[in-house]
């Protein structure tokens, strides 16, 4: 167990190092910099030069990389060129939106997909299965930003039950915060629930055809009990793997939905930082995405150990 964690930690650090080099290099190659973004059509060579000197952009690339990564290693994420505030504060503010949103969406997806997928497997090739398949196909086919627009049209502009977008901040109260996140979470969750329903169905169905489930049935267990007691628990590892992917997708890939609902999440920060060439922010955000992805996958691996005693024994 300890060996596994140490190995993963080393892998994490190596990956983060490679990611840091890659993102730094990518920003170097990209045309334009924050000085040109700030001066726009009024940029003159002299103004560009003095602004670059002021921001330290005229220093050689290795020096700038070391200054950035040295700061990150000592816990200093640097200062945003655009906003002039510490990146750590910017990112913390955005994570306070993005993580609850992703968590809420994932919870919704699980709440819908797990029962529905299991039901579909239990009643394979009958009406509930067909209904679940229809739901999954439909949910998958609808782009999440479009679902978002539809939700806004119905619940915000027509019925006026919900805010049309924006985020009041958690200090406005948990209720107000959650209210702002409900519609975006539904929009994000639906396609994910579609995927998860399909995965759950086939994973449970695979297990239902295994010998141990047949044995359970032969011993006189009802099909329903056999599935809930024996097939479903054993179907969890593949479902968890997909969940891990989905969580990282929800954190990193929510940009479109954040845009529709005008949520100040990590995705919109990354987008704006890119437009403004706020390189320190982009580099930090990419590093955080990478770290988050690795950590989530690690958590998924650990959960296999919890779910499957055989893996623990082998170590």
């Amino acid at each position, binding site marked *: 167990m300890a060996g596994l964690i140490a190995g993963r930690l080393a892998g994490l650090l190596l990956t983060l190092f490679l990611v840091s080099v890659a993102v730094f290099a990518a920003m170097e190659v990209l045309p*334009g910099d924050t000085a*040109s973004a700030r001066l726009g*059509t009024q*940029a003159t060579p002299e103004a560009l030069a*003095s602004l670059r000197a002021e921001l330290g952009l005229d220093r050689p690339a290795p020096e700038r990389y070391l200054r950035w990564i040295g700061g990150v290693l000592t816990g200093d994420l640097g200062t945003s060129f655009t906003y002039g505030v510490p990146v750590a504060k910017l990112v913390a503010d955005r994570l306070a939106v993005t993580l609850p949103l992703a968590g809420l969406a994932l919870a919704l997806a699980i709440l819908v997909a797990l029962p529905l997928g299991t039901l579909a497997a239990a009643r394979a090739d009958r009406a509930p299965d067909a209904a679940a398949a229809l739901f999954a196909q439909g949910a998958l086919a609808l782009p999440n930003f479009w679902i978002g627009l539809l939700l806004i049209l119905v619940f915000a502009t*027509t019925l006026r039950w919900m805010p049309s*977008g924006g985020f009041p901040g958690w200090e406005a109260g948990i209720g107000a915060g959650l209210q702002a996140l409900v519609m975006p979470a539904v929009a994000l969750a639906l396609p994910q629930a579609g995927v998860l329903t399909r995965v759950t169905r086939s994973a449970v169905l695979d297990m239902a055809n295994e010998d141990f489930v047949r044995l359970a049935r032969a011993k006189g267990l009802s099909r329903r009990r056999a599935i809930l007691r024996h097939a479903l628990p054993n179907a969890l590892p593949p479902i968890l793997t997909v969940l891990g992917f989905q969580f990282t997708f929800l954190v990193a890939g929510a940009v479109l939905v954040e845009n529709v609902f005008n949520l100040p999440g990590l995705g919109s920060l990354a987008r704006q930082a890119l437009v403004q060439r706020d390189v320190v922010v982009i580099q930090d955000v990419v590093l955080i995405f990478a770290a988050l992805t690795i950590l989530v996958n690690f958590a998924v691996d650990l959960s296999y150990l919890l779910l499957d005693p055989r893996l623990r024994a082998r170590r």
Partner: protein
Amino acid sequence: MQNPLTRLARLGRATAAALALLGVGTGATLAQPRSDIVVGMAIEPAGLDPTVAAPVAIGQVVWQNVFEGLTRIDGEGRIQPQLAKSWTVSPDGLVYTFDLAENVTFSNGVPFDAGTAKFSLDRMRATDSTNPQKQFLANVVSTEARDPKTLVVTLSKPAANLLFWLAWPASVMVEPGSAATNRTQPVGTGPFKLGEWRQGDRLTLVRNETYWNAADAPKLDGATFRFIADPQAQAAALQSGDVDAFPEFGAPELYAGLETDDRFETVVGVTELKVVAGLNNRIKPLDDPRVRQALMMAVDRASLVEGAYSGYGTPIGSHYTPNDPGFRDLTAVHAYDPEKARALLAEAGYPDGFALSIKTPQMAYATRSAEILQAMLAEIGVTLTIVPTEFPAAWVDQVLTRHDFEMTIVAHAEPLDIAIYGRDNYYFGYDDAQFKAAIASAETSLDEEKRLEAYGTAQEILARDVPALFLFVMPKLGVWDARIEGLWHDEPIPANDLTSVSWRE
């Protein structure tokens, strides 16, 4: 689809009204007019100091609200006194003596006097200044605080636009103690001060209780700016009442729907945003004026405005808007005439046309215009290839700085900026002695008639030579709650001056 929903909505509202009658809702607020406003903007400002960065979004939040200048520009585009109550100009036009307002303090308590005014101007014109409009003060030889309420500015040659330029967001008054941190903690002499800036979402202003100008005190207690990029989200925010006003609504195609809605007042105003398709006059075949003229004649501006901006917007024939001083309508100089354009191309040696690329920023007006230009130029045999170019960073690097382009398209936001065609090595690569002389005369002429005449000449030279395809002036698609008054209808300078905004009973 619409019907049952509307019915449901009516039911919901009826229920809400019933609840309000029972005292459940927040019925109390209905009686009094509101004292705050939520203003929507498409683009969030990058920093809040208009003296160090060019994006117009900065001025649209802080100019007149947080920061003030020696002079200001009002909603009709006139120059008005502000921190300078009055001024005298020496007969030779070289010495400006400003009489400054007294008992003025910055929102941090620091008093404003001639010393602070001198500091602000000197900071703007310093060698290492990154002020985007530094050139405004290029003629200034010295600034002097003669006494606490008298500022004297001496010029090397007359500057006819000085009072206009001093009114710009880039020329606002700042004080030494807070100048360096204005980007995040703006401190000005204005009627509001910064409440909170929640980056990526909203910014609040609160009334400055120590505001000096009782005659011009704001009616609102505070204001919130919300930044909503997506046009659909903008419309939704208006319709759900989350945002009270979008002074510059983002999507012309959604605007018609708001125009018919009684809850909103919609005002199509004029701006200073000139959409021009810049040509690289340095390279073949665009160095031949006949070729540029032929391209201009291939463009049907009215159809372009129709396609790119749903018909809102005013065609222009030069780099000048109808609200600029001494405007001349020059759209007829190279009016739409594909026949003549083809003949002119043949005369210039391109009977079969040629290929051209256009570096096109991602903004909707630019991409749509480029697509329409592509179709129009195809009519005279010119094959236009659209090259997406991210604005501002990549565009500034490739087009503006390295001149690595053939054709491009962008809106120039600065008011009265026709002089950019006389700038050495600006991106058009246009260099014309006559034009430079006309601009010099306009900018230094003390006689108003001569000045307007010179601007007329400058417009005509550009219309004739076509250093860029002059297309149209963007409209200001204003939309706000019908109970709001006092928002600017036009935009003589990019701004959201909230000083006189209020709610009707």
